[in-house]
């Protein structure tokens, strides 16, 4: 029995166990938790291949799991007609004065980094800003920007495929677009409070 077989054996046992849990579970919200467990074992099955390709396949696998979780939990809230908790914003002085400068620093640093990780850093800045300051939602605007950035990113991919000699343009395009996309997507999380949609 080589390493791959041993790993496969253990993982499949884990898959079976997690499915037994799913079989026995009756409560809707607990099912979501178990589903997360099951998905993780699926990722381990990919990891077992242990090449660069496996590394590249894990990211899509992870993203599929996260996005389905996001959608299902929202569907659950809708299905159960759960009210959205309302709370008063905390009144701390530093939360009114600090956000601009912190956000500015984080966004600038994110732009220097560029790309996916840059987007994440800049996005955290904006999340912070919106959480502290923003009581008005700007979903439409952020969504539009995010959508266009996503489309540009896909365009860059097609440039790589069809016109490889223009790769520099594609690199710049995709780097910039993903920066904007990730930033706006994360910023949207900051605006997810029952404020006014402007």
């Amino acid at each position: 029995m080589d390493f791959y077989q041993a790993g496969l054996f253990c993982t499949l046992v884990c898959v079976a166990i997690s499915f037994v849990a799913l079989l026995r579970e009756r409560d809707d919200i607990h099912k979501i938790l178990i589903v997360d467990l099951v998905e993780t074992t699926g990722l381990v099955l990919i990891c077992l291949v242990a090449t660069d390709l496996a590394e590249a396949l894990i990211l899509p696998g992870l993203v599929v799991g996260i996005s389905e979780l996001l959608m299902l939990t929202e569907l659950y809230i809708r299905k159960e007609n759960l009210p959205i908790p309302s709370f008063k914003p905390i009144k701390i002085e530093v939360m009114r004065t600090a956000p601009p400068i912190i956000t500015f620093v984080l966004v600038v640093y994110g732009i220097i980094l560029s790309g996916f990780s840059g987007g994440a850093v800049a996005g955290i800045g904006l999340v912070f800003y919106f959480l502290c300051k923003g009581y008005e939602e700007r979903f439409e605007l952020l969504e539009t920007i995010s959508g266009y950035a996503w489309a540009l990113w896909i365009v860059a991919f097609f440039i790589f495929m069809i016109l490889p000699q223009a790769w520099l343009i594609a690199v710049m395009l995709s780097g910039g677009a993903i920066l904007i996309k990730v930033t706006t997507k994360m910023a949207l999380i900051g605006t997810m409070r029952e404020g006014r949609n402007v």
Partner: protein
Amino acid sequence: MIRHIGKGFRIFSNWMSTYENLVAVYAALGIVVTICGILMVPMLSYHEDQIYSKTMNRTSTLDPYDRGGVPFTMAEIKAQYPDNSPTAGYVTTYLTPFSWFLANTTPYFGTTIVAHPGGIIDEILYNTRGLDTVVETSILFTAFAIASFLFRRKD
């Protein structure tokens, strides 16, 4: 006897027609198939000649991000159809100016001391397995669209 079979069948079909049991039905099928899979493990052996096999150059200053080759040139990746993507590696080895500076001046790039993000596109195979990337982001996009649509419904 026949009456019992008929009664059992009725219970079965009633149980199957309740959608709360759907997850349980699928889980039961999943367990059966996984057990079949476990029994077949001895027949599966690892294929040594993999594409995109993993080679790590520990001495490189770019260590975890090093895909071979000088940035902006061809990288040696064992791809499935090398002739379809002769430019593989143009992107995969791209670093942001700051990471490039770190990598050239210090040996610590990518270690825990300087945990600095890699390049514009961390996904190593953007060029050769790009369609995966497109689908993956589409999935995220769709799920986000559904979640935000549900979140913002006012009725």
